[in-house]
């Protein structure tokens, strides 16, 4: 049966050919090149390329800076995801209630998502600017302490985390809101009739029913924190002070395009790919146990 479904043997292949070509040219081939070059070291001008085997990888794993960057990125991604999701869920629940000006709030909450990472970066860097920042001023008035994130690495890290989580809230809220609205009213009503408190019905009914959305957002937020926060870091802190906000993507960029260390940068990109594949796999394997597809 299946064999005769398509009479043409070649046509289906022809139809998918353009997409396959695009994938090969723009994804597979560059990845292959990066993979290959990660075993070489050479001058910035592409001359004197010497095969060094796994040396680039060994250097990375014995470099305290790289390991620190890896740990920092994991912490950053986890914080951005969990803070972002918790706040977004809270906001989504509030916005689903019949309150005055609901439409305005709904629109307002999505605005940060519409901002480019660059603008978000400038905004938060200026708010916390050591000499002219508004938040710096308020903190100074309230506590007498002058905060300076340009020398305080922990503070810089906190600012980047807040900015990254803040920027993605709009995206999360939209998904949470639609998920909450899709919960069948009857279920909630019958729970209410059975005497469930609003807390009980939220944690026992709403949350389990939106776990597929949560799972989806979990992965999307991790990917966002890993890959799409580059612009934010680049504009706000350039990885500094020191290396306190140097996440993996930023370190990779710097090694490749500022310091012209192509071998190491290629090894880093291969590792980044491996991390994210492994990470997503683990999430699918373990987190999905708790996901309830209604």
């Amino acid at each position, binding site marked *: 049966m299946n064999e005769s479904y398509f009479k043409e043997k070649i046509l289906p292949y022809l139809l998918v050919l353009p997409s396959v070509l695009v994938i090969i040219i723009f994804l597979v081939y560059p990845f292959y090149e990066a993979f290959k070059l990660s075993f070489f070291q050479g*001058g910035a*001008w592409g001359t004197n390329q010497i095969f060094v085997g796994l040396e680039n990888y060994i250097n990375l794993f014995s470099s305290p800076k790289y390991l620190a960057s890896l740990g920092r990125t994991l912490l950053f991604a986890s914080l951005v995801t969990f803070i972002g999701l918790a706040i977004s869920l809270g906001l989504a629940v509030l916005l689903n209630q019949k309150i005055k000006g609901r439409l305005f709030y709904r629109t307002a909450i999505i605005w940060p998502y519409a901002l480019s990472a660059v603008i978000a970066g400038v905004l938060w860097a200026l708010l916390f600017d*050591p*000499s*002219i920042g508004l938040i710096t001023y308020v903190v100074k008035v309230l506590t007498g302490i*002058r905060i300076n994130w340009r*020398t305080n690495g922990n503070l810089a890290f906190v600012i980047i985390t807040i900015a990254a989580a803040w920027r993605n809230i709009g995206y999360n809220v939209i998904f949470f809101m639609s998920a909450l609205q899709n919960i069948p009213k009857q279920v909630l009503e019958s729970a209410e009739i059975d005497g469930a408190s609003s807390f009980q019905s939220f944690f026992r009914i709403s949350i389990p029913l939106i776990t597929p959305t949560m799972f989806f957002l979990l992965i999307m937020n991790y990917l966002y924190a890993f890959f799409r926060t580059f612009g934010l870091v680049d504009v706000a802190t350039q990885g500094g002070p020191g290396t306190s906000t140097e996440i993996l993507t930023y370190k990779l960029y*710097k090694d490749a395009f*500022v*310091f012209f260390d192509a071998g190491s940068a290629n090894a880093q990109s291969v590792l980044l790919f491996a991390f994210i594949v492994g990470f997503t796999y683990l999430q699918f394997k373990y987190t999905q146990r708790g996901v309830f597809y209604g």
Partner: protein
Amino acid sequence: MKKILSIVFVFTLIFSLMFVFNTAKAEEVEVTWWHAMSGGRLEPVKQLVEEFNQSHPDITVNATFTGSYQETLNKAITAAQAGNPPNIIQTYEVGTQMMWDSPYVVPIEDLAEPGEVDWGDYLSVVRRYYTNPEGKLVSMPFNSSTAILYYNKDMFKEAGLDPLNPPSTYAELENMGRQLIDTETVEKAITFGWPTWVFEQTHYWTDNNYVNNGNGREKRATEVLFNQEPGMKIMQTWADWEENDILIYGGREYEPDAAFISQNTAMLVQSTSHLKDVIETAPFEVGTTFLPRPEWGNRGGTTIGGASLYIFKDDQEKMDAAWKFVKWLSNTDNAVFWHKETGYFPIRYSALTKLMNQGWFSEHPSYLTAFIQVLTAKESNATSGAIVGRFPQIRDIVDGAVTSIFGGQATVEEALNNAAEEANQVIEQYNESQ
């Protein structure tokens, strides 16, 4: 039918015109120039290129803005590897070692006929910076600047200081800074733009090298020297200032300008390339003076920052045309024009004379500050400026050390020693790959 005929006619006309233009263009040499001048500097670049193209009918220069110095360099590397480099690129001074090591770059002195250019007319400090250990000028200096002190004259008056007597030494800076703070004129006295560059400049100001092998001038540098006595002393002073509210760290590049302009500090050390911006945007009277120097050490001088123009290997015809353009760019009139438009130094003594005769410096005394500072520099390897591979990365490492000292995570000694160790590894790695 009539319609079709007219369409055919129009197309024939277009094609024949294109043909005519093509043959006309074939005799011209096209030169591509990738530069990094944006904002207020773009217009003068365009004007210069236009003027050259009009006065040289046999050469057409196509100037393209290709992003920052670093982005321009990246694009040039990719293009050179693909076998299609531009003819001229403008890139930063910290890329000098890398450009000297490039198999694609041809030293401009090789393109000049002996005696064709009077190199003695070029500012010594500028010429020395771009001359390699073999004594060859590799690139044509284009935009050069140095670090000077900017100060708020109104605040000096308010604090009871003489606005015509700004600090010239570290001790004076500290005393005046203290007075500015004690009179509650301002909370922090000073901030540094490009702190790592100021750190380098202060080495040269006290006639000390920043890297070994004669500051990388005698042969390829293999080690940094900033964790020796001079570097330790400079950084310890800065650390004390930071602790006593005299100094505030405001960022790596131009970010600290905001603190000075918004009157949150009374003084700023910054490149002269921002002179025009600072004077125009500051709502107070800006004074400028030499970069203050520590009391100890010999008087050396400050070196230049900025960028220069490199010519890439190509057909002889193209290289000659590129050289013609680069040489023309640096002629006296153009050097005067470029200085007036951007505030970068004119790179020739004859341009300096011309500006002086025009009375330019009496109207713009601040422009003179930077000049005299570099013109009075002692001729030594120190004031020629350090040349070392992966300089941008070394700056990054030093910046990490500076912030960890100011943030209280490390002592001056620990931070500088660690930074030096890391920098030496980077240099070793670079040198091995050459």
